[in-house]
C-alpha cells in the first residue's frame, strides 16, 4: 500500500507534523489478553452486582418485564449495528419501524403527531418547553414541583443558558397534587407553558383539566409529562395537552444504570413545524407504491442552522424499536392488563401502609416512616435482599421522613409483605 501511494514508510505520513507534538515513545498499554481472560474479567465484575434482589424503586426508572421477543427482533444486524441513516429514503425498513413507532405513540397519547424519539424523558420535557416558547412567542415557563426533580434540573440546564426564566409552583400537602392557587398566582401573560407530570413524581394522577384551564385561559400551552409509560395503558390520554413529553424506559428498555433510554415528544397538528427531532412521513414512490421518508426536514439544523427547532439530529432508534416491539407484543388489551396488574400490586402494598397523600395513585406512592428513618428501613430491607423505595429527603426536604415506593407486575406478594412489615 505504501508503494501505491508513493510513500517510503508509515512515519513519512506524519512528517509534516511539528516535532514538539510528536510522541517519541510507544503508548503505555498493557499487553493484550486472551478472549477467555476478557470474558472472565467481565463475568467477575458482573458477579459484583446484586442479583436476585426484589426492587421497590421507581422514580423514573421502573422494574418491568422485558418480553423475550424484544431482544430477538432488536438483535438483528440490520437494526443493531446500523447507524442513523443519512440517505434516509434508502433505509425503508428503518423508516417503516419508526413510522409504526410514531403511530403507536400517537394512539397511546391521543396526540396528532409524534417524532422519531428523543434521548430521554427529561430532555424531551426541556425541548417541549422550548417548543412552547417558539410557538407562543413568549419567554417564560412554569413547572410543577411534583414533576420529577431530575427532569426539572435538566430543564434548568437548558433554560439558564437561553435566558428562559423557569419558575416552580407547589403541590398541595394533603393530596399531593398541584397547588392550583399557587399556579394561578404565578401565571401571567408572559408564560409560554405550564408543565405538569401525571402520574406525578409522587405517583399521583394529577389535576390536568384544571391546570389546562389556568394555562389556556392566559394563552399558554399545557405540557403533560409522563415518566411511567405503563400508566398510558389505563389513564385517559390528556385531551387538554398541547404537547406530551415522556419516558419509554418502562417499555422493554432495561434500567441500565440510568440509560440509554428513549424519550417521546408528541403534539397537535398545528405545532408540528415547531417540533424538534426526526419525523418520518408516509408518501408514494415514483411507481405509486407506499414508501417512507424523513419529512419536514426544514425544521432541522442541517437546513435551518441557528434558526432550527433544536440541535438534535438523531433519535434513539434501537431503544424506540424495543418500545415498539413491547407495544406490539402487549397490544392495547395487554397493555391495559399490565397497567391493571401494576395498579393492583401497588394498592395491595399501600393497603398495608398509610400513604402520605390522599390523591389517587398508579403504581407508586409516598409513605412516611415512623420510628425509623427511610434509610434505616432500607438498610434492614437490604439484609433481606429487598431494595426499598427512594428516600425523598434528597429532593424534598419537607418529605425527609418519607420514601417513594413502587410496585409493578414484577413485585411478589411475600416481598411486599416484608416491606409492609418494615414500616410497622
Amino acid at each position, binding site marked *: 500500500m505504501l508503494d501505491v501511494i508513493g510513500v517510503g514508510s508509515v512515519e513519512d505520513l506524519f512528517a509534516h507534523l511539528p516535532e514538539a507534538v510528536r510522541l517519541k515513545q510507544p503508548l503505555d498499554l498493557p499487553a493484550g489478553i486472551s478472549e477467555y481472560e476478557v470474558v472472565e474479567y467481565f463475568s467477575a465484575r458482573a458477579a459484583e452486582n446484586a442479583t436476585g434482589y426484589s426492587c421497590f424503586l421507581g422514580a423514573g426508572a421502573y422494574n418491568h418485564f422485558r418480553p423475550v421477543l424484544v431482544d430477538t427482533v432488536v438483535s438483528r444486524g440490520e437494526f443493531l449495528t446500523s447507524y442513523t441513516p443519512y440517505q434516509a429514503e434508502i433505509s425503508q425498513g428503518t423508516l417503516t419501524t419508526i413510522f409504526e413507532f410514531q403511530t403507536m405513540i400517537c394512539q397511546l397519547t391521543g396526540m396528532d403527531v409524534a417524532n422519531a424519539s428523543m434521548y430521554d424523558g427529561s430532555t424531551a420535557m426541556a425541548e417541549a418547553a422550548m417548543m412552547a416558547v417558539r410557538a407562543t412567542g413568549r419567554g417564560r415557563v412554569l413547572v410543577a414541583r411534583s414533576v420529577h426533580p431530575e427532569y426539572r434540573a435538566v430543564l434548568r440546564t437548558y433554560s439558564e443558558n437561553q435566558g428562559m426564566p423557569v419558575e416552580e409552583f407547589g403541590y398541595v400537602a394533603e393530596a399531593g397534587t398541584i397547588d392550583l392557587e399557587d399556579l394561578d398566582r404565578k401565571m401571567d401573560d408572559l408564560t409560554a407553558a405550564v408543565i405538569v407530570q401525571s402520574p406525578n413524581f409522587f405517583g399521583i394522577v394529577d389535576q390536568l383539566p384544571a391546570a389546562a384551564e389556568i394555562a389556556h385561559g392566559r394563552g399558554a400551552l399545557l405540557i403533560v409529562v409522563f415518566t411511567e409509560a405503563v400508566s398510558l395503558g389505563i389513564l385517559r390520554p390528556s385531551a387538554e395537552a398541547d404537547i406530551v413529553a415522556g419516558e419509554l424506559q418502562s417499555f422493554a428498555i432495561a434500567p441500565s444504570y440510568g440509560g440509554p433510554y428513549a424519550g417521546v415528544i408528541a403534539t397537535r397538528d398545528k405545532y408540528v*413545524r415547531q417540533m424538534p427531532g426526526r419525523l418520518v412521513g408516509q408518501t408514494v414512490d415514483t411507481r405509486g407504491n407506499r414508501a417512507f421518508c424523513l419529512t419536514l*426536514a*426544514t425544521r432541522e439544523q442541517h*437546513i*435551518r442552522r441557528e*434558526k432550527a427547532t433544536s440541535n438534535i439530529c438523531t433519535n434513539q432508534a434501537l431503544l424506540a424499536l424495543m418500545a415498539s416491539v413491547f407495544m406490539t407484543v402487549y397490544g392495547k388489551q395487554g397493555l391495559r392488563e399490565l397497567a391493571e396488574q401494576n395498579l393492583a400490586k401497588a394498592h395491595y402494598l399501600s393497603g398495608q401502609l398509610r400513604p402520605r397523600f390522599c390523591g389517587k395513585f398508579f403504581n407508586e406512592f409516598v409513605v412516611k416512616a415512623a420510628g425509623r428513618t427511610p434509610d434505616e428501613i432500607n438498610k434492614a430491607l437490604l439484609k433481606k435482599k429487598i431494595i426499598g423505595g427512594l428516600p425523598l429527603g434528597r429532593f424534598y426536604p419537607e418529605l425527609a421522613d418519607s420514601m417513594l415506593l413502587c410496585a409493578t407486575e414484577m413485585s411478589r406478594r411475600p416481598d411486599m409483605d416484608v416491606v409492609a412489615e418494615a414500616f410497622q
Partner: protein
Amino acid sequence: MYPENFRYTKEHEWVRVEGDIGTIGITDHAQQELGDIVYADLPKPGTSVAQGATAGSVESVKAVSDIYAPVSGQVTEINPVLADAPEKLNEDPHGEAWLMKIKLSAPAEIGKLLSAAEYQKYIEAEK
C-alpha cells in the same frame, strides 16, 4: 415577465405600491431557484418590519429562504391562499401568490429599489 409597476430587491422580492399599502411577494426568478415550494412562514398581522430585515421565510423540500422586507412598515394582511396551497408561489408568484400587505412607514424607501428593467439586468448578470 417582470411587471413594470412593481419595484424589486436584489434578494428577489417585489413590491406593488398602491397609496400607502405595499403588496409584496417573491419574484419568478426566486420561485425557480427554490424549486417546489411547500410552506410559507409569514409574520403575524400587526408585526412591524424594517426594510431589509427578515419577514418570514419560504420553504421548499430541502431548503429555507428568508424573506427580506422590501419596505418598512406594519404587516396588515397575509395571503390566506398560501396556507393550503403554497405551490401557488411556483405557479403565480407575481399575482395570486402575493405574500403580505404592508402599510408603509417610509414611502421614500421605494426610491432605493430596482425597476423592472434594472431587476431583469441584475438577474441576467447573476447567471
